[in-house]
């Protein structure tokens, strides 16, 4: 962290992020806050879980994001009969060469849209564990690198319990943020209605950003300066979640690293090379809430989420910001 960001690179990263934002918001109306958070995730190199009712633009957002980048993109529709091999790929015997040849699955791509991820069985969901953590897939004892950058955009329906499997906590921990779309407001919805909406495949953007740019972003984010008092603040928040009696478990170490990375990304996104307490506050709810489970689970998923958010906000309010 001693070396700081050269001005040229810093300006370039700003330009990249602003361009991506402009491209996505030309297509998605009135969801600037969600777009901001998604771009922060991209910059931090994290995976995003978008959770909401069907038909509010989750998949569109994922598509738009992938199209703004000049990178390979795959969509996996998760169903209950999807198998791990369908995701990671299989080794098949080549008669001619007389050896097993690895046929890469859809996961071998820069951006993977895992649509309705909670419809697959836990077995299949677990196939994502290694790849989401390290960007590697091990099949038959051989490890294969997936694309770089590698970003998983997963969507899931919260209320639709029929035929869904709840994501395990270890899987949840691997997502940097969980976002909600929400309905657009009246004005924006009128805009959407009156506009001409093509299908996802028509989606073509001018001036997409390159893979190189995204990798640069990821590197720059790690160089954003975080002052000691801000780190201490993050530490105090996660310690409070660990001692809170309402939670089954607190934020993991991976979670605290995620908070720091997201705060750094947000600082860069806002055009600063250092993190303010405001940056932390802005991202911390989205980063933390899906990692926390109640000791006494509620029968209703939205209810449980509201309770987790309420308790977490109470913890936040009780810890003074660094001055």
């Amino acid at each position: 962290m001693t070396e700081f960001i050269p001005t040229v690179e810093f300006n370039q990263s700003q330009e990249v992020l602003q361009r991506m934002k402009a491209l996505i918001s030309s297509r998605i109306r009135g969801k600037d806050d969600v777009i901001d958070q998604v771009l922060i995730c991209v910059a931090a190199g994290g995976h995003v879980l978008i959770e909401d009712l069907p038909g509010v633009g989750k998949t569109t957002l994922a598509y738009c994001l992938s199209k703004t980048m000049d990178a390979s993109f795959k969509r996996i529709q998760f169903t209950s009969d999807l198998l791990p091999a369908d995701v990671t790929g299989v080794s098949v015997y080549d008669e001619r060469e007389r050896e097993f040849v690895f046929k890469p699955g859809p996961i071998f791509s820069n951006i993977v849209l895992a649509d309705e991820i909670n419809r697959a069985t836990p077995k299949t969901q677990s196939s994502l564990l290694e790849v989401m953590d390290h960007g590697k897939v091990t099949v038959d004892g051989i490890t294969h690198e997936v694309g770089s950058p590698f970003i998983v955009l997963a969507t899931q329906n919260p209320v639709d319990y029929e035929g869904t499997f709840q994501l395990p906590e270890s899987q949840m921990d691997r997502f940097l943020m969980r976002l909600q779309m929400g309905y657009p407001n009246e004005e924006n919805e009128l805009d959407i209605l009156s506009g001409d909406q093509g299908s996802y495949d028509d989606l073509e953007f001018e001036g997409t950003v390159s893979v190189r740019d995204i990798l640069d972003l990821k590197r720059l984010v790690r160089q954003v300066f975080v002052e000691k008092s801000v780190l201490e603040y993050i530490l105090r928040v996660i310690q409070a979640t660990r001692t809170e009696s309402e939670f089954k478990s607190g934020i993991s170490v991976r979670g605290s690293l995620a908070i720091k990375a997201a705060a750094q990304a947000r600082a860069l996104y806002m055009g600063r090379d250092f993190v303010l307490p405001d940056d932390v506050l802005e991202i911390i709810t989205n980063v933390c809430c899906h990692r926390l489970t109640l000791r006494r689970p509620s029968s209703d998923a939205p209810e449980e989420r509201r309770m987790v958010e309420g308790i977490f906000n109470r913890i936040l309010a009780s810890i003074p910001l660094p001055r």
Partner: protein
Amino acid sequence: MENKSPKLSLKQYALLKWMLGAGMGLVSVSTVFNLSGYSYIPAIIAFTCISVSLFWPAGFARLPNIVWRVYAIGIIPLMAMDVIARDTVAALLNLNTWLIIYRALNHQKRREELQLVLLCLFLLIMTGILTASLLFGVQMFVFFGLAISFLVVSSITQCSSELDGESDKKDGWNAALVLSTFRILFRSRYLFTGTLIYCFLIGLSSLVFLVVPRVEVENKVTLFELKSNESLSGFSDNIRLGDVTSIKNDASIALRVDVNSSKGVPVDPYWRMLVLDTYQNGSFSVSNGLQDKLRNTMASPFNTVRYWPDKRFSQVPSREDRDRWTVFVEPGASRYLPIVGTFEHLTFSQLDKLFMAADIHSFALSKVSSKMFSFQLEGVDFSGKIEDYGLMSSVLYNSAERRKLLRSEELTYPVTLLQLPADKKARKIFSNTAKSIIGGDSLNALEFARRAVEFLGEKHDYSMDIELPSLEEAGVEDPVARWLNSDLDGHCEFFASSLVLMARSAGFPARVAVGYRGGEWNSYENYFMVRNADAHAWCEIYDGEGNWVRVDPTPGSSSVSDVRSVQQQAALGVTGSKAYLDSLKMLWYRRVVNFDEQAQREAALQLKDFLLAYIETAESWLTNAVEYFYRWIREPWGIGRIIYFTFLAVLLVVAICIQNRLTLNYKELIFATFRRGDPIRRKAGRILSRLDAVDKKDWSDAKRKILLDLQTLRYGAKERWPNARMTFKGSKQL
């Protein structure tokens, strides 16, 4: 409601506030005229200006602002002139008056209104202390009402921000407005409510301040009664002799005694409370007959003339010039008054609660007081001699009569004064010892007592923890007889009991007196602190000539005649923080709880003297300083001196320049050593947190740049820090 009562408009409120403010100023300035020997000129000017402003506010409001600025600066030389004229009181008064003029004519903000109230109050209290006159009270009451109304109106107008008092005043107000305001105000409802609130507040404060310390709360509230019954720790009605020793275990203070005596103070005062006469089952106690005497309604001070035509009991001290002993008895200590000796005058606020038994010279309240009470003795004689008013002593001295009385089954007072143990063996021991002391001589009572004390002192030493010889060894049940027959150590009760019983068996009437002996002298406020641990028992022997004489057989008691002056006592008394704290309590007792008007006046006068003395000291210090400075200036200016001072001036300028170029000022640099974290980050953080509340929406880019720089200084990497000094400088315009 059809006849809705009219409400005051904002303009009317402003008028009212202005008038009340002027009224306050007038009242407080008028107090200056109570003083004599001070210049009235500032007060006259103030009075005129404020009166004019009351009727013509527009005039002062139209004055340009510069006039007030010049006036504010002009006060300083006026003040300096007063100080140099060696009169600090006048300087203070005048300064206050000038400031009141300034504030009374300019007050729009709430802060300024409160300043006006405070300034007026300060002047009022200052003149009040200097005069201590009744007029002050009247002025205070008027001011109180005005100030309350002023603050109320000010709060009301504060709520409505639209009011612009300045423009209103410039317009001035016409008679119609004034008239309408007063017409509304003097509607009966407002007038009634206002007066009611005022009277209520005045009444409440005087109730708290004056009535509560005087009122007998314990009679009305059962809670006090419970407490007072439980806390019977000291000398009570049914005291038996062994109880005195148990009282001695308590180190808390039982009474404080203020001495105002030119005759001097006895080295070992005896605070005599009660007399024990009857001897039963090895200990002395108060016989029923004596207890009845202390409860008899005839034993009230209003019947004193029957016994003591020469003594006075009253609720106010006498006017005669003699020594005075004021005793403050702690709550729950006892119902008996500790009396240091016979006296000529007793002052007690509630004579109807007082009972007295003349023949034993004991005074008691009807019950143990649950709050502190005090009484005063004048013309005290502490020779330890008490006249016998019982007339029974003659009976006791008539031997034929005596034998007949002593033979009766139930002994009654005063025959109990000759009562001996019921046990024959014990009686034998006492009479044998008495005989051996007399040794065949014919002695009078006092000579017998002297010899007996000598005898006891040779045989026994003083000790608090005693061990009696076993029953078999002594062959007698009576503890006092057992003790007397041995050579063991004992405490005051044994010495006193032995002496009394010996004297009785020798035919001299005697009794045990209980109370306190000695006490510590508090040198801070010059008074006795008598603790429960000072509890003591001693003897009184009838000398056959109508007097009961105090005899203290306990070893270590000094002779009666030892007297020290108050000054000597002060040199020997106790000091230290505990004594100091206790002396504060005494001050409180003397001035507030005691609460007679004389003490109040004394307190006010003392405060005045203190203030004047203090001012005098400050004044002389200031004049000395000014004179010194003047002489110093007048000293010849050699070239060396000029160079020296030029050098100093250059140093000062350089220091100021360096300070200006520093990022942190000296204070922050010094404090940085004691604080955690980087001082620049701290300072930036402090400025940022101050900016939190500021609305940043329509900020210019330059301002945003400064904000970003501040944030960089607080949270950014040190390598990226902008110039901190420039940033802090720039932050001043945010």
